[in-house]
């Protein structure tokens, strides 16, 4: 428990020391917005999508803003240094875009109470530190629906990185959606124990295909699994961005991360002085999660079902995690009709029945 207590104490301390936001002091100078990235902007994955968001901010406000970024920042003390550097260079709003930047962000934010910080995917907040994340599991539910329709063998392969809640809820959401279409659906998970190793991701896809999976999806960063699927003539989904170029036949759709709307809005609020700390968890409805155009191969029935799921999620009539839900061991996790709270989601460490993980 000591860790949590430390974190809480830290939060309380920060809240007390936070000052009022700086408004209008530098009305003439461009508003500085900084970004700290965990990977290279050229990763065509996670970091690339955040950099698209940065470009959207530039496009929206022109010379009223000045954006800067530091890429390839290691999670740990190096991150604190990079964040501090942007703060000292005069940026007034700083986005830190990886879970491992959480402690460094909180730490630096304490030192700079007048600067606003936004940390992606974390759970620690302060008066001047907001958190944001996307409900990728909503996208997983849509591609799971497509997978359920398109798979002939009734088996999907899922290449996953590490069993953190984010990844676990993605697997469960995908499987639950596919199972709705095909009650006998199986989802086979390979833990690649890496976020990025193209050759290994490709080999993992091949192993899943060998074991009878005819739809491949992934929660790792490269497009290698799609290429392997294309080569073997099975279907797959893109990750983080539209990856159709890598696999024109195999690429059924992709979960596209779109941070631009959020970034543009938050920069505006920071400029206006209306910015407030908080926790935003945006999904399909907010435009943070999008689906890439369906491949021509996606059957009309699958299309209709996928659109239906999307509409339901947007309208709030469908939650990907709705009871009655039992985990692999048969423990009841959600009662009939109950939907999973954000609390349950963000701590998820169990798998629904039918997932082989």
């Amino acid at each position: 428990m000591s860790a949590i207590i430390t974190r809480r104490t830290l939060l309380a301390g920060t809240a007390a020391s936070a000052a009022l936001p700086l408004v209008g002091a530098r009305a003439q100078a461009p508003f500085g917005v900084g970004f700290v990235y965990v990977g290279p902007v050229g990763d065509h994955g996670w970091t690339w999508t955040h950099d698209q968001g940065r470009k959207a901010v530039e496009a929206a406000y022109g010379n009223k803003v000045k954006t800067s970024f530091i890429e390839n920042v290691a999670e740990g003390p190096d991150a604190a240094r990079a964040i501090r550097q942007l703060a000292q260079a005069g940026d007034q709003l700083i986005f830190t875009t990886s879970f491992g930047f959480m402690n460094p962000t909180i730490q630096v934010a304490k030192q700079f109470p007048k600067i606003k910080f936004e940390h992606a995917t974390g759970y620690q907040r302060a008066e001047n530190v907001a958190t944001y994340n996307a409900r990728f599991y909503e996208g997983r539910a849509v591609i799971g629906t497509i997978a359920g329709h398109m798979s002939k063998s009734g088996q999907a392969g899922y290449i996953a990185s590490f069993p953190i809640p984010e990844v676990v809820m993605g697997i469960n959401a995908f499987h639950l959606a596919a199972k709705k279409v095909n009650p006998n659906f199986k989802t086979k998970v390979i833990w690649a124990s890496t976020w990025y190793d193209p050759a290994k991701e490709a080999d993992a896809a091949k192993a899943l295909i060998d074991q009878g999976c005819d739809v491949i999806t992934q929660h790792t960063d490269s497009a290698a699994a799609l290429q392997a699927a294309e080569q073997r003539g099975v279907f797959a989904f893109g990750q983080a961005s539209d990856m159709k170029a890598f696999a024109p036949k195999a690429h059924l759709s992709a979960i596209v991360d779109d941070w631009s709307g959020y970034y543009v809005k938050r920069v505006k609020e920071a400029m206006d002085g209306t910015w407030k700390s908080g926790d935003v968890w945006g999904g399909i409805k907010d435009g943070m999660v999008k689906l890439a155009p369906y491949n021509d191969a996606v059957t009309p029935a699958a299309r209709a079902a996928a659109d239906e799921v999307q509409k339901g999620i947007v309208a709030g009539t469908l939650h990907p995690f709705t009871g009655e839900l039992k985990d692999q061991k048969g423990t009841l996790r959600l009662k009939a009709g109950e939907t999973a709270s954000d609390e349950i989601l963000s701590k998820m460490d169990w798998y629904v029945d039918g997932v082989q993980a």
Partner: protein
Amino acid sequence: MLEWRRRREPSKAMLYLSPLIAVGLTMLTGMLVFGAIGYDGLRAVTAIFITPLVEPQRWADLGVKAAPLIMIALGLAIGFRANVWNIGAEGQYVMGAIAGTGVALLTHDMTGWWILPAMALAGIIGGAAWAALPALLKVRLQVSEILTSLMLTYVAVQFLYYLVRGPWKDPDGFNFPQTRMFSASQTLPAVAEGSLVHLGVPLAVLLALIAWFVMAKTVAGYAVRVVGRAPAAARHGGFDANRVTWAALLAGGGLAGLAGLFEAAGPFGQLTPQFPVGYGFTAIIVAFLGRLSPPGIVFGALVLAVTYVGGEIAQSTVRLPSAATGMFQALLLFFLLATDVLVRYRLAWKTRPARSAP
């Protein structure tokens, strides 16, 4: 025509001048290359090499970044002088941090002044133990320590992954692969309230002074140098090469382990899979930049710290990609290693050899 001539004595002047020449050449080449591909070469070079030195708020960063490099390189240099090629400091650094963290996890609900020293001791032992295996294999079986120490690095890193993803995972950490945060009694204090500079930074400099004294003024230091330079003479002089091998590897491993523990108990405050950032490998380069002497190592570590910190400044101000920082570092190393030749050779006009008639 110019030609290289071997100096009778290594040049003292060049020993000190050549690193500066190398830095100058790197700046010039970098300016030209990055200018040619469309960046503001002058601003890039200024941001990387000058800004970190002239902005006082960057100095703490430089110290924090240089400290582990200094500590590891000091230990390695002792070995390199004795012809003991420990290149697995990264593994010893990781094992030191693991051993120290083990103590931290055992004492997580305790307080007391003794906890941090116990962690430091565990760090030294962990690093030294990881270096003891190459030492044993070298002394007993003449197995190359270059290869064994390098291989053990990967074993150590995988062991770290195993621990933080498995048995040592923070029970309150939502399954994220990381240990719990260290408590106040387990965290390295800052040199002054609110400063980023932790106790490890002045300690690294102090260790450099001690290492300089030991190497230059004591019999032990002399033994290391003799064994490295003239093993046969050393045997006649009664110096035991095996003992020097043991001492060099244990000292290198112990210092690397202590550096690892300081990094874990200082800037990190926990162990995560991102803990190994390559300080053990960078320190090898630092040791050579410093020409294997403790004062030189402090300089070399600072130069590398400048390129890291400056690289980030260049990214945010000139939009130089982070890969360019890597290129600058590589260029700097190429030039520094290349200009080492100036210490042993000098450039001279070629004198035309008298031709004898055929």
